[in-house]
Each structure stands twice: as structure tokens, then as C-alpha cells.
């Protein structure tokens, strides 16, 4: 291993001209001797004798070279090399200490690296465009605080016109869901953009070309993302020019992005196409587009907003010509993820949890350094006696800490790569089912640099306190001049005790957090939607037709077919403003046909469902959920009462509905919000705008049954991709599973670290106190008393830690509860709050049991003889 050092230092020396320095020095001295010998030779001495005399006269060349090195700029390098060598030898001697310390540091470094690798591409890296710092997105806020973020194509095009005074490289975009392919159609996400999008985003291409205005005139082209290329064409190497069926429309492939390249969205779509190139799908005509671009140089976001407001007001004049209070808003967007109210507390609490686990590890490492420094008192005091200054000793100790961290950082890189790949596999597999892909998580140079920087900080930070403490002691001893150790108590013991309390206190929030999140994931898995999920299939036929519905209904194994606006668990239900009895409320609404309640299996509590003639004529009748009934007319029967819903198309126009039935509360939007707090079902039939989903109840949802559905669609010239509703639920659960995975890993790590710290402390204390135990046993203490004494001390420390940790937990829970309300997330989960401290206590007892038993087994005679 010493050859490793030699090789490393040789490399270092070469790297910074050290080799040259040495050879220059040697050449200069040699010249001197030669020149002197020349002079002597001229005076008649033979050459060999002249050289001998010259060398003698010169003196000890090596000594002068050493002086030269000391005045040179390489002195620090030499010292560093010597320190590193010493540190390496020291660690090699205490290899068990080194192994544990490296494992501790490597585990937290790896955890932090994985976190950073996930966050970096979304939160920290600037958008991959020139002028990313000027990138903005537009929205409009009206007088009542409602915001509009997308416009019809013509209006959006006006906003990005080239004569826009404040915006350049303006582009429009819209994410749309489509079905791609004929035989085996796949659900897919497409980003529809303006040609100007690719003037700004210049993606790296694997083949072909990006889309431009020319492309539009020549053909109807699409640009595949790398993942889209793999998913939709099975990585066809000759894909250029190939036709793909997109919602039944034939489009040709113009290019494929390189791996890792993407657009400006956090989730990379399967492909891009140009707005207006193809008006495909039932929703294309009503599609709206968001607008982004770069602020012109020197224009601030506020100035831009002020300049855009008049343009925005001309886009769609307000109904009735009243005063227009709409105002443009310009939101800087510098990274892939947009700032959001829910994301920020999530990111902050994530960072906080990782910070906690890092702090636990740091306390642990500090404690280990203290123990080691105490154990090495003798060694250090000899060095001090030989004249090493305090600074020199401290540097020696710190070098050891840094070397240790650096080795740990190397190890952490490997660990992080392996775990990032594993986590990525879990998370991405669910997402990719839906035609989305996420950026690959890479442990790249940035992440590694961060790890080494953090390792350096940990190395210095954790070594500093022990180094100060130990070297202070040496000075006192040196002053006492007796040069021997007083076997006195050493305050590092108390410090280490405090560090254990700290570790326990910091671990507790992590453990409670793990408990809370694991429970929430468990709740999410056992969630009761209010209807049976088995055999519920969401089918998105393109185009949907009455013939197709009839055909589906006649298939064997199909128990029910219903046409809906929003399929169960598809996402948030649309919200509408409702007037009733002179009051106003914002409620969620869905549009369903007469078979909805029977197909899904929602019981009607009062009244009746829709009749076919009501859905066909979109009659002004409604079924409301139990919760809605209670909310609008508490304690009274809602049947026959009426309310009004604002028309989504015409602001200020209301339509009157009569309540004909009350349905059970079920989960129809996002499952984590629980059963719908409000739901109004309105009658609708096939062909109405906004209605595209057909939901089936089938006997079997295995692959052959789904294949039969596909074939039935294909027979009638339609495309469809059956998706079990259960899968939608699975997708919604992903964040909870990820949170559970992360928090439980951190919890386990923290528990392990805290126990390791306690174990180390107790074991060390037991060795230190062997003599004391010997004396106590000799004067009549029982072994049981020694055992309970040692264990009692551990319990007391853990108790203190828990007492300090609980308020932190409560504070965190309060913070999270105030920001995030999920029905499955019980932030004050009593089980976690009561079990986790007990778990910590039990683990701590176990960790101190073996050293305590050893203390109890002390042989008084040998213990006393030792001194």
C-alpha cells in the first residue's frame, strides 16, 4: 500500500513541477562544484583531486537542498505528504476504527449524493437554453384573482409575435395525451409547440433534424425523444421518415433526440409536434397553449408584465364590454421544475431530513474521533514531548479526519451509483407505463464534487473539536513537566455523552418521520375508493362512436360500459362555481351517462339516477354526492331542490339544475384527498365536448381480456389502449411509496448510527472504568448492580435524547400538517409517536448490553493488578 503513496506523491510532484524543482536544484549545486573544480584544475591540480577538494569545500549538499526545500513553495506539499503518510499509517493501525468511521461517513455521503442527483436536474440546473436566466412564462390574473395560464392557438400566437416589445424567442406549448400506433396502441404524451420552440431549445439529436417552420410546410413531422423512440418504435434505427399513427392520424418521424436530451418540461414527452401542423384528436380544436420566452435584455419581469397587460386585454374582450381588470403576470422560470406551493415544503422537509441524518453521522464521527484521541494520549504526548507544536499535532489529527472522509467519499460514489440505479428503477417503471420518462439520475462530476466537498467539511468539522480538546490537554501536561499521565478524568467522556444525547435527539424525528410515511404508504395501499377496482377499465377509444360502445357492450365478459367526462382516479375533477339559495360555492363536477352509477358500483342513497333521454338531451338535472348534499342543505332532503352552475364558456351565465338523486361518496379524483368533499354529476352522452373516456366493468383484466378489447376497437377502425383503473391508483401512490422508501431508509440509517454511537461510548467507557468496577466488586458490589448501573446510564442518555427530540418532531409535524393535507398522511400518527421512542430505547439497550455484560464480568483481581 505504501507503493500507492509513492505513486500518488510522484504523480503529484510531477503535476506541479516538483520534479523539475528538484532537478534544477541538483544541477545548480553540481555546476558550483564543477566550476570550483575547474578553477582548481587551472591551478594545476589533477581533475579527480580538484573535484574531491571542491566537494569537500562545498559541504553537505543534501543539507542545503533540504534548506532549499524549506524555503520553496513546495514546503506545504511536503508537509502534506508527510501528514498523509502518518495519517494513513495511523488509520491502518486502527483499522477497525477506520472501517467503522468510513462506513458511517460513506453512508451519509451516499444518501446525500443520491438526493442531490435526483434534485439537481430539476431544481438546481439552469434550463438547457442560452439566456436561461431570462426565461419566463406568462399568465393572466383577473380582477377576482383567478388565473389563466393557457390560450387558444390564435391568441397564444399573438403573445409570441416577433414584434413583442418585451419578449424574444417567444414560444407556445401544450402537453397532450394521445394514442400512438395501430396494432398495439400505446398511451403517449406529446408536447405540441410552435416552431420557435426549437430556436430556443436546441436539443442534441441522435439522428434527423429538429422541427422548424419549414418542416411544417413540407410534411407533418414529429420529433421523438430518446425514450419515445425506444417505447414507440422499439428503438428502430431506420425510423427517420417512418409514419406513426397518432390518434389515427399519420405523421412522419423527422428526428430523434440523443439520450439524456429533453425539452423544458420536467417529464420528457414521447415526442414533439408543431401546433397547427396537425389538428388531431377530439380535443385538438379546443386545445389551449401556454406561453414562454426570454425577456429582452434589460427588461425586468415587472416591466414586461406592465407592457403585456394591454396586449392581453385585446385577446378576448370581456363579456358585456365592462371594465377589464385582467393583468399579465410574468413568472421567471429558471429550472425544469416550476415553483409551486406544494413542492417547496416538500423539498425543504426533504433537505431537512437529510440534514438531520448528516448531523447524526457527524455527531457519531466526532464521538469516535474523541474516543480515539483519548486512546492515543500516549502516542500524542510523546510527539508533544519531542517538540511537535500544538498546530502540528492538530494538523496531524485533522489530516487523518480528512483522509478518512476522502476514502469514504470514494466509497460513497460507488454506493450512490448503485442505489441511484435501484431507486430509479422503482420510480421510473411506474411513470414509464404512462408514456412519460424522467431524466436519468446520474452521479456525475457535479454530484461527486459536492460529495468530496461535503466529505472535506465533515472531515475538518468532526476532527476539529477532538483535535482542540486533545491538544489542549497536551499543553497542560507539557507545562506540568512531569511528562507522565495523571490518570485523571478526561472531560471528553462527558462530551461524548452529550454527543450521544444529540444523536438520539436528532434520530428521533427521522424515525418518527419514517413511521409516519410508512404508515401513509400503507394507508395508500389499503385505501377504500368506495367502489370495486377489480375489472374496472378505462378505455380511451379514438374516435369514440355509438357503434363501438354497442360492440363493447356485446363482448363476453363485459358487465357494463359507461361514458364519462373524467374517468375514476384520472385526476382532479374540474371545479365549477355554484349558486344555491342565494349562496355561492365552488364544487367539483363530473359528467356521466345513465350507466355510470351501476357500472362503477356507486349506490344511490336517495332519488334516482339519469334516464337515457336525460343524458341524450343533457337535461338540467343532477345527482349529487352525500357530502355535497350535507354541505348545501344540511339536515334537509336535497331531492327536488335546485342550484345554478356557471357556464364554463360564458362567464357570468348560469344554468339551473334540479337535484334528482344522492349518490354515495367515493374517490373519483386524487385518492390522497380522500372521498370527494363535493361532487355534482351532470348527465352527458357520447359526442359531447370534453367527453372522451369510456369506462368498462369486465370480469377479467388479464392481458388476453385487454387484447380482446383492443381487437374490438381495431375492428371498428378505432384506437384504444385499455388501462385498469387500478394502475391509475398505483401511479397516484408513487409519491407516497417514494416518500416511504426514502424516509424509512433514513430512519434505519439514523437508528443504526445512534446505536453505533451509543455502543461505542459504552464500550469505551467500560474499558476506561475497568479499575473502578474492580474496586466496586472487591468491596461488595454485585455483578447485577454493575450491569444495571451501566445500562441505566444508557437509558438515561437515550431518555434525554428522546426528551430533546420529541419537540423537534412535533414542530416538524405541525409544519408539514399546516402545508400538506392528505387524507392518508397522518402527521401526528400516535403509533409512530409512541412506538419509535420505544424502538430507539430498545435498540439502545441492546447496543449497550454487550459492553455492560463485559463490565459485569470484570475480574476484580486482574482489574486491580492492571494499574
Amino acid at each position, binding site marked *: 500500500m505504501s507503493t500507492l503513496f509513492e505513486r500518488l506523491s510522484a504523480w503529484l510532484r510531477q503535476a506541479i513541477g516538483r520534479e523539475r524543482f528538484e532537478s*534544477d536544484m541538483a*544541477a*545548480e*549545486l553540481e*555546476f*558550483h562544484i*564543477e*566550476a*570550483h573544480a*575547474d578553477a582548481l584544475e587551472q591551478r594545476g591540480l589533477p581533475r579527480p583531486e580538484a573535484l574531491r577538494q571542491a566537494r569537500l*569545500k*562545498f*559541504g*553537505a*549538499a543534501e*543539507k*542545503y537542498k533540504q*534548506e*532549499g526545500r*524549506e*524555503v*520553496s*513553495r513546495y514546503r506545504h506539499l511536503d508537509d502534506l505528504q508527510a501528514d498523509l503518510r502518518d495519517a494513513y499509517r495511523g488509520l491502518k493501525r486502527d483499522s477497525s476504527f477506520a472501517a467503522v468511521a468510513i462506513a458511517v461517513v460513506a453512508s451519509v455521503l451516499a444518501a446525500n449524493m443520491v438526493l442531490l442527483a435526483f434534485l439537481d436536474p430539476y431544481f438546481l440546473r439552469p434550463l438547457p437554453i442560452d439566456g436561461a436566466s431570462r426565461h419566463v412564462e406568462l399568465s393572466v390574473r383577473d380582477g377576482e384573482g383567478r388565473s389563466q395560464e393557457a390560450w387558444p392557438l390564435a391568441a397564444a400566437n399573438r403573445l409570441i409575435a416577433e414584434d413583442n416589445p418585451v419578449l424574444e424567442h417567444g414560444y407556445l406549448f401544450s402537453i397532450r395525451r394521445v394514442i400512438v400506433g395501430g396494432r398495439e396502441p400505446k398511451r403517449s404524451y406529446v408536447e405540441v409547440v410552435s416552431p420557435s420552440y426549437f430556436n430556443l431549445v436546441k436539443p442534441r439529436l441522435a439522428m434527423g433534424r429538429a422541427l422548424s417552420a419549414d418542416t411544417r410546410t413540407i410534411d407533418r413531422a414529429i420529433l421523438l425523444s430518446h425514450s419515445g423512440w425506444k417505447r414507440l418504435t422499439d428503438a428502430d434505427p431506420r425510423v427517420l421518415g417512418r409514419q406513426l399513427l397518432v390518434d389515427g392520424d399519420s405523421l412522419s418521424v423527422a428526428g430523434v433526440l440523443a439520450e439524456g436530451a429533453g425539452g423544458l418540461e420536467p417529464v420528457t414527452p414521447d415526442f414533439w409536434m408543431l401546433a397547427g401542423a396537425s389538428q388531431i384528436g377530439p380535443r385538438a380544436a379546443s386545445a389551449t397553449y401556454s406561453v414562454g420566452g426570454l425577456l429582452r435584455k434589460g427588461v425586468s419581469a415587472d416591466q414586461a408584465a406592465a407592457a403585456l397587460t394591454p396586449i392581453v386585454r385585446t385577446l378576448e374582450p370581456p363579456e358585456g364590454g365592462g371594465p377589464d381588470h385582467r393583468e399579465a403576470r410574468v413568472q421567471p422560470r429558471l429550472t425544469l421544475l416550476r415553483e409551486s406551493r406544494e413542492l417547496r415544503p416538500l423539498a425543504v422537509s426533504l433537505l431537512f431530513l437529510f440534514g438531520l441524518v448528516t448531523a447524526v453521522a457527524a455527531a457519531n464521527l466526532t464521538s469516535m474521533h474523541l474516543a480515539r484521541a483519548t486512546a492515543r494520549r500516549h502516542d500524542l504526548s510523546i510527539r508533544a514531548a519531542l517538540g511537535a507544536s500544538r498546530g502540528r499535532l492538530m494538523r496531524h489529527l485533522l489530516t487523518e479526519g480528512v483522509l478518512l472522509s476522502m476514502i469514504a467519499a470514494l466509497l460513497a460514489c460507488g454506493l450512490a451509483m448503485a442505489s441511484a440505479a435501484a431507486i430509479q428503477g422503482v420510480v421510473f417503471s411506474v411513470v414509464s407505463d404512462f408514456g412519460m420518462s424522467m431524466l436519468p439520475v446520474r452521479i456525475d462530476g457535479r454530484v461527486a464534487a459536492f460529495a468530496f466537498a461535503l466529505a472535506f467539511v465533515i472531515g475538518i468539522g468532526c476532527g476539529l473539536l477532538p483535535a482542540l480538546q486533545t491538544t489542549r490537554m497536551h499543553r497542560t501536561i507539557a507545562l506540568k513537566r512531569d511528562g507522565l499521565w495523571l490518570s485523571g478524568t478526561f472531560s471528553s467522556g462527558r462530551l461524548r455523552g452529550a454527543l450521544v444525547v444529540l444523536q438520539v435527539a436528532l434520530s428521533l424525528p427521522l424515525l418518527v418521520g419514517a413511521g409516519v410515511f410508512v404508515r401513509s404508504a400503507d394507508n395508500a395501499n389499503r385505501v377504500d375508493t368506495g367502489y370495486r377496482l377489480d375489472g374496472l377499465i378505462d378505455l380511451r377509444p379514438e374516435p369514440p362512436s355509438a357503434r363501438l360502445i354497442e360492440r363493447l357492450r356485446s363482448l363476453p365478459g363485459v358487465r357494463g360500459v359507461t361514458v364519462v367526462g373524467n374517468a375514476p382516479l384520472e385526476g382532479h375533477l374540474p371545479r365549477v362555481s355554484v349558486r344555491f339559495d342565494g349562496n355561492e360555492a365552488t364544487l367539483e363536477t363530473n359528467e356521466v351517462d345513465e350507466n355510470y352509477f351501476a357500472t362503477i358500483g356507486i349506490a344511490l342513497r336517495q332519488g334516482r339516477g339519469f334516464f337515457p333521454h336525460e343524458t341524450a338531451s343533457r337535461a338540467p338535472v343532477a345527482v349529487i354526492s352525500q357530502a355535497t348534499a350535507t354541505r348545501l342543505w344540511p339536515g334537509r332532503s336535497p331531492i327536488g331542490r335546485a342550484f345554478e352552475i356557471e357556464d364554463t364558456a360564458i362567464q357570468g351565465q348560469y344554468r339551473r339544475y334540479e337535484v334528482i338523486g344522492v349518490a354515495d361518496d367515493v374517490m373519483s379524483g386524487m385518492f390522497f384527498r380522500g372521498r370527494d368533499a363535493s361532487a355534482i354529476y351532470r348527465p352527458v352522452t357520447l359526442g359531447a365536448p370534453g367527453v372522451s373516456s369510456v369506462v368498462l366493468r369486465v370480469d377479467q383484466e388479464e392481458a388476453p381480456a385487454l387484447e380482446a378489447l383492443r381487437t374490438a376497437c381495431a375492428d371498428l377502425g378505432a384506437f384504444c389502449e385499455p388501462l385498469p383503473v387500478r394502475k391509475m391508483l398505483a401511479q397516484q401512490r408513487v409519491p407516497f411509496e417514494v416518500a416511504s422508501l426514502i424516509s424509512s431508509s433514513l430512519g434505519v440509517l439514523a437508528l443504526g448510527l445512534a446505536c453505533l454511537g451509543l455502543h461505542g461510548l459504552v464500550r469505551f467507557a467500560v474499558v476506561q472504568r475497568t479499575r473502578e468496577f474492580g474496586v466496586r466488586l472487591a468491596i461488595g458490589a454485585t455483578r447485577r448492580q454493575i450491569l444495571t448501573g451501566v445500562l441505566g446510564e444508557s437509558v438515561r442518555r437515550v431518555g434525554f435524547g428522546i426528551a430533546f427530540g420529541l419537540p423537534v418532531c412535533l414542530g416538524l409535524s405541525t409544519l408539514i400538517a399546516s402545508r400538506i393535507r392528505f387524507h392518508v398522511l397522518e402527521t401526528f400518527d400516535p403509533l409512530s409517536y409512541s412506538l419509535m421512542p420505544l424502538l430507539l430505547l430498545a435498540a439502545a439497550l441492546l447496543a449497550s448490553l454487550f459492553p455492560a455484560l463485559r463490565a459485569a464480568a470484570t475480574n476484580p483481581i486482574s482489574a486491580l493488578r492492571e494499574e
Partner: protein
Amino acid sequence: MSTAQILPGTLELLILRALSLGSLHGYGVLSRIEQLSSGALLVEEGALYPALWRLERQGLVSTEWGVSDNNRKAKFYAVTRKGRAKLGEQMEAWDRLVAAMALVLRNGVTA
């Protein structure tokens, strides 16, 4: 003529003075000091080099590799502007010191 060891701390001054007459290699510096002192000052040969390197590090002399009279590769030293200023200062300080020493020592002798 009898020789004398140089006073501690004066070697740098002597080197700067020797170099102020033109650039020299290390051996040349040594020869010039002996020549200027008519062989009265003895410089420990090897000790010359750490002193030269210290001056180089302080920026008082600059260095350049060249070829010596007898056609060998040698490192030549020259006084920098900063070195010249330093030499001026030190020479003044030395003069003051010598005058003060002489005053004390002679007064003591004559009294």
C-alpha cells in the same frame, strides 16, 4: 591576509551587493564576494544557495538559466528593482550600525 567569518544575517546583503554589479551564477557570486573583500570574507559555500533561493522567493533577485564561461549550463541571478531598493535600505542600516558600533567601541577604548 587573515580571513573572517561573515556576521550572521549579512550574507543576503553581501549577495545583493555582489549581484548589483551584474548578473552572476552562484559560484560567480562567491568569487565576487571574495574578490570584493580581497579574500578577507569567508562564505561557507553551500550556505550560499539557501540564501540565494530565499532571495529568489522574496522576489529580490530574478533567475535565468544560461551558459557559463566554460560552456556549462548555469543558473544566473540578477537583482530586481525590489532587490535594489532593499539593498539601498540595508546598506544605510549597515552604515548606521557600523557608525554606532564604532562610536561605542572607540569611546570605550579611548576613555
